[in-house]
């Protein structure tokens, strides 16, 4: 890196940004004026509201037959007007009166006989005027209550203490620091995230997409400055501006709040919110942790903005991200959410929670360090990501006008494989389907639900989509007969893979014990199916997934992924996606492992039928074992290893050998390797038409 070049870029970007009136207003003008204005308006509104309330006449409805005593009690009150009504409660409901007071006709009598009389106040809690009227009446009645109580005590010659056997007082011993802290703690984390985001937003967009839009990026790239210098210089500028805006906002808010509190009569607020109690050191710690946070937000915003072609598009890209980072900030502001081993790792939320912990004196040095390091690592990753994007000439010079967004079938050129974007879209769609409608159908009735999920909700839409965008199904889905040797290799891989996957599950249960409820659920599932025919079970749990999930994963997704990624990366990615697809923490790793094995076999053999066979066998063994339809000796074996939590080493070695044999066989067959290897396509053939390594 060339420090001189970086500095030159920072100086120029700062100068240019600070000369922009829009930026100056957003960065300096708004924070300086907003907070004082906000506080002034709030206090004015509250004061006005109070004054209005105090001037307002409360109309109190009394029943025509209300005792004279009650009328006497209420008649002397200021700002109260008594009205007679046949139905006082209805009068309140209809808005004719603010509150209604009803006493039983025996009120005077019960006072005479020294028992309790009853008075009911009807009011409408949603109406401030009604609540206010109720309070006025209640105050008046409580005054009478006290007066009568004193009279009765005097009559009986008893002291006041007689009716107060215990005097209960609760004293708030929270330190002023803590009280101030908890007030700030609810507000500050969220605000800091918002402000850093505001500060980073405009520069991040202007320095990347803005420069692209002006066409000056290309000129800059032709100078003897490395892309790393450029991205570093731009990043430093964005970061400095974000920190500056964050601090300015924070300063302005603190100052105007403090000033407002001083203005309050009797220092009512000052005793609660006094800022002397949050130490300078606390603010220092907060500022220190703010650095990696701002770093992280700036780097991500720049990375997102550089994708856009122009300023406007960049704003459209960055705004959703901005809203997204507010969510963890908001969650952290909620009472009860605190730092824990898990939340220390969540980006943005962890810093917000750390601020909260510092302000309420709960932060430990260890937690501080964890959050700081974690956020620094995230920030670094984000910066590496942004720098990597800057290296890509496609991203930097991306200026084609884009393609007219037409969804008509005729507008799609015929192709042999979908794009990787399409494939990832298919994955997202399948996940959504699985999450919503599939869950609905499966909870209604499991077996029919599984059929509907596999055939109607997954396979059918994906096939229709592929057909619609004119992708050659034969090549994209690898619909080619496998060689017999490939099937044999598939058998070996399934056998070995099955054993290894069971073992992986067992190892996983050391770290991640399978939850009892899931285990019970599975047992119940199979127990409930006891009456069903085995054939139906096999169709639902082995055949359908083998066909439908293979079409989706080893067909639509794999062929698209393969157009952009190499052999190994494709196998890995599709395997992992397959693991994620099973929507269960416990099954991700084992199913991903099996997914990798099957993906490898399909890609190497060039035939999806290899995968369908393997998938079927794998699931079928599972069904047969769970329904106890396997020979007793093997069932005993399964039970034994479950108790031991470990497959005997000779069996594992055998499984490894089977896999090795399967791989060797596959590799030697070779030949039909790639997605579109032997399909001759039109000129619009995809880059996937390259042989596998």
């Amino acid at each position, binding site marked *: 890196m060339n420090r*001189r*070049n970086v500095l*030159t*870029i920072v100086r*120029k970007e700062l*100068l*240019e940004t600070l*000369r*922009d009136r829009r930026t100056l207003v957003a960065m300096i003008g708004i924070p300086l004026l907003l907070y004082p204005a906000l506080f002034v308006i709030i206090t004015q509104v509250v004061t006005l509201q109070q004054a209005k309330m105090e001037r307002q006449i409360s109309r109190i409805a009394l029943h025509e037959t209300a005792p004279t005593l009650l009328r006497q009690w209420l008649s002397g009150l200021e700002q109260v007007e008594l009205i007679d009504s046949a139905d006082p409660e209805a009068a309140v409901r209809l808005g004719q009166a603010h509150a209604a007071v009803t006493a039983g006709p025996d009120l005077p009598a019960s006072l005479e006989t020294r028992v309790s009389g009853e008075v009911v106040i009807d009011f409408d809690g949603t109406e401030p005027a009604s609540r206010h009227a109720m309070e006025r009446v209640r105050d008046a009645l409580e005054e009478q209550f006290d007066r009568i109580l004193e009279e009765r005590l005097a009559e009986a010659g008893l002291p006041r203490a007689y009716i107060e056997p215990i005097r209960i007082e609760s004293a708030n011993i929270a330190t002023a620091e803590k009280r101030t802290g908890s007030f700030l703690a609810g507000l500050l984390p969220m605000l800091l995230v918002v402000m850093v985001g505001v500060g980073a937003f405009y520069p991040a967009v202007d320095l990347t997409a803005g420069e692209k839009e*002006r*066409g*000056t990026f*290309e*000129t*800059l*790239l*032709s*100078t*003897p*400055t*490395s892309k790393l210098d450029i991205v570093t210089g731009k990043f430093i500028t964005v970061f400095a501006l974000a920190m500056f805006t964050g601090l300015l906002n924070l300063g302005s808010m603190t100052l105007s709040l403090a000033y407002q509190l001083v203005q309050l009569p009797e220092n009512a607020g000052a005793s609660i919110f006094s800022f002397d109690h949050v130490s300078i050191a606390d603010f220092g710690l907060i500022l220190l942790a703010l650095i990696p946070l701002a770093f992280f937000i700036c780097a991500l915003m720049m990375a997102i903005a550089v994708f856009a072609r122009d300023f406007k598009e960049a704003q459209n890209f960055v705004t959703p991200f901005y809203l997204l980072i507010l969510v963890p900030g908001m969650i952290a502001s909620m009472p009860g959410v605190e730092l824990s081993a898990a939340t220390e790792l969540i980006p943005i939320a962890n810093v917000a929670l750390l601020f909260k912990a510092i302000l309420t004196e709960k932060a430990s040095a260890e937690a501080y360090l964890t959050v700081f390091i974690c956020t620094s690592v995230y920030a670094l990753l984000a910066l590496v990501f942004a720098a990597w994007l800057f290296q890509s*000439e*496609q991203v930097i*010079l991306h200026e*084609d006008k884009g*393609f007219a967004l037409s969804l008509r079938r005729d507008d*799609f*050129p015929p*192709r*042999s*494989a*979908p*794009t990787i*974007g399409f494939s990832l879209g298919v994955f997202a769609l399948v996940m959504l389907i699985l999450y919503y409608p599939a869950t609905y159908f499966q909870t209604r009735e499991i077996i029919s639900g599984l059929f509907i999920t596999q055939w109607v909700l997954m396979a059918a839409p994906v096939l229709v989509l592929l057909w619609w965008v004119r992708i050659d199904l034969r090549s994209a889905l690898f619909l080619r007969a496998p060689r017999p040797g490939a099937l044999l290799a598939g058998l070996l891989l399934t056998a070995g893979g099955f054993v290894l996957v069971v073992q992986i599950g067992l190892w996983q249960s050391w770290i991640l014990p399978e939850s009892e409820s899931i285990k019970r659920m599975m047992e119940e599932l199979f127990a409930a199916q006891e009456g069903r025919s085995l054939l139906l079970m096999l169709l639902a749990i082995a055949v359908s997934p083998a066909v439908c999930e293979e079409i989706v994963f080893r067909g639509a997704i794999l062929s698209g992924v393969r*157009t952009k990624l190499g052999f190994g990366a494709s196998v890995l990615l599709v395997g992992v996606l397959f693991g994620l697809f099973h929507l269960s923490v416990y099954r991700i790793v084992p199913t991903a492992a099996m997914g990798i094995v099957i993906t490898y076999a399909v890609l190497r053999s060039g035939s999806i039928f290899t995968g369908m066979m393997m998938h079927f066998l794998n699931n079928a063994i599972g069904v047969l074992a769970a329904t106890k339809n396997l020979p007793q000796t093997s069932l005993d074996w399964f039970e034994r290893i479950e108790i031991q939590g470990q497959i005997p080493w000779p069996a594992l070695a055998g499984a490894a050998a089977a896999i090795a044999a399967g791989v060797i066989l596959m590799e030697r067959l070779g030949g039909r390797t790639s997605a579109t290897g032997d399909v001759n396509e039109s000129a*619009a*053939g*995809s*880059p*996937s038409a390259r042989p596998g390594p």
Partner: protein
Amino acid sequence: MINASTQDAGSARPLIAARAVSKSFSIGRGRTIHAVREASFEVAGGEIFGLLGPNGAGKTTLLRMLATIITPTSGHCEMNGVRTDVDPQGVRRTLGFLSGNTKLYQRLKAREMLAYFGRLYGMSEPAIANRTAELAELLDMGAFLDRRCGQLSTGQSQKVSIARVLLHDPGILILDEPTLGLDIMTSRAILGFISQARARGRAIIFSTHYMTEAELLCDRIGFIHAGRIMAMGTKQELYERTGADNLVDAFVAMAEREGQQAA
């Protein structure tokens, strides 16, 4: 910095060379565009090479590869004998690149913008000041040197851009449509600078789709069509090969011949 004076202009070694350079872009949906196919040519010091072709022919992509903005998919470029993929930083010091449709930093003054680029080229502050004064006089920019770029007219902006290209006195000039959208007077002035630079031994490659401009200025011309350099030579050679008496007819004849071969 390599000045023309330090290079033996006119000698056998070309200052610009493209060796079977190709570039293809993946444009999504699995499609690929072959923007440039196997382009090869050389430009010596004191020579102007004109790249002629319609919009979308691949002129800009080819020039971007020469200017190290993008890397070729295959083949390579050499600037003054140095391969652009081996030492892009070193190559950039020796060349001035004017991209098509380039704009300026709207909120910087013309002088500040020139200084910014001067620093990035590693020039000292006095050198930047001297050179700026020199170019301001040469390009008649004195009146607007201290105005913000956002307030300049199209012609004034292009002059600032040209000054930016010439600032570090590069031995190689790569100019993408330098006269596009300019009025006649400014166009003529800019074409004047290009021929002056030739007289000082610079190697110049520039693209245009104004045939008359090329006719007037270029020592050699390359016709580029659909990413391929169809023909290359002096005006006279091109006329003789096509039987035409102007570049427009020559280009059309070549394009038709190419189309017949392809069919």
